[in-house]
């Protein structure tokens, strides 16, 4: 792991992976959304509103998965003080927040025709809203800390601690539909079985894979941008010291 955490080696790998992940991801997502919107059958109970699942489920998966990634990167940054891990956590946060917002809005748009309301204070919906607030809190704290420490993300600890504390919300999101009597349905796909028809599973899996690859590509782009900004700032500081 430390081998890949070397910034120069990371940049070499990222330059290859960034276009690959982004372009393959966009292709898969486009195929999944096209099939989901025009070629997959309507559900026998939900009708056509089931098509919202092909955008809602990948967004929900990336909202939670992104937060887990951000928390792991924050733990690595706290324990080993590796600047690349802090940069990775900061790169994940806005993208994760975006997917959480997409998940909440698409869920609301699905809820109106299905449940008769855009929003209920259901355990799953509320815990997803808390996840969005955790992302926004992390972004605000990370931005304030970076400003305080001259743009060095490895210096601040508060945002990393907030990311780790917020991990407690992830099992609440996952198991909320089992622990409490919620309006939101239980899981349709587990590690061992799926209750979804293959004609609906195909577009779901395509968009899930596509969104995940695009997420990875965007995070790599944001990490490369942050590394480049760090290099420019460090060079500027060195020049200022030399001429002082």
């Amino acid at each position, binding site marked *: 792991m430390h081998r890949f955490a070397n910034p120069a080696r990371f940049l070499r790998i990222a330059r290859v992976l*960034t276009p690959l992940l*982004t372009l393959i991801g*966009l292709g898969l*997502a486009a195929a999944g*959304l096209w099939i989901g*919107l025009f070629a997959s059958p*309507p559900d026998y109970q939900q*009708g*056509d*509103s089931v*098509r*919202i699942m092909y*955008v*809602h489920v990948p*967004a929900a998966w990336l909202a939670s998965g992104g937060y887990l990634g951000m928390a792991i990167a924050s733990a690595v940054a706290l324990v080993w003080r590796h600047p690349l891990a802090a940069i990775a956590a900061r790169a994940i946060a806005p*993208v994760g927040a*975006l*997917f959480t*917002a*997409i998940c909440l*809005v*698409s869920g609301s*748009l*699905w809820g*109106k*025709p299905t449940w008769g309301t855009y929003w209920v204070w259901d355990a799953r919906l509320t815990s997803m809203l808390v996840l969005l607030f955790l992302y926004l809190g992390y972004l605000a704290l990370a931005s304030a800390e970076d400003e305080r420490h001259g743009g060095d993300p490895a210096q601040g600890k508060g945002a990393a601690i907030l990311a780790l504390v917020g991990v407690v919300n992830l099992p609440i999101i996952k198991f909320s539909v089992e622990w409490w009597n919620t309006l939101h349905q239980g899981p349709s796909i587990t590690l061992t079985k799926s209750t979804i028809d293959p004609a609906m599973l195909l577009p779901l899996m395509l968009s899930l894979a596509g*969104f995940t690859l*695009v997420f990875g*590509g*965007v995070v790599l*782009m*944001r990490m*490369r*941008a*942050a590394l*480049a*900004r760090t*290099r*420019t700032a460090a*060079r*500027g500081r060195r020049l200022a010291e030399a001429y002082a």
Partner: protein
Amino acid sequence: MTHAEFIYPSYALTIAGLLGAVAWSFVAMRRAEAAVAKERRR
């Protein structure tokens, strides 16, 4: 298609979010890496 007034906005929002994130991050990356290259040439 039934419920099109709910389905199309959710797709439009998601596609705009996905493409917006790619475009925003790509422009930021190219700008930052161009600044490093410019510094190096100086």
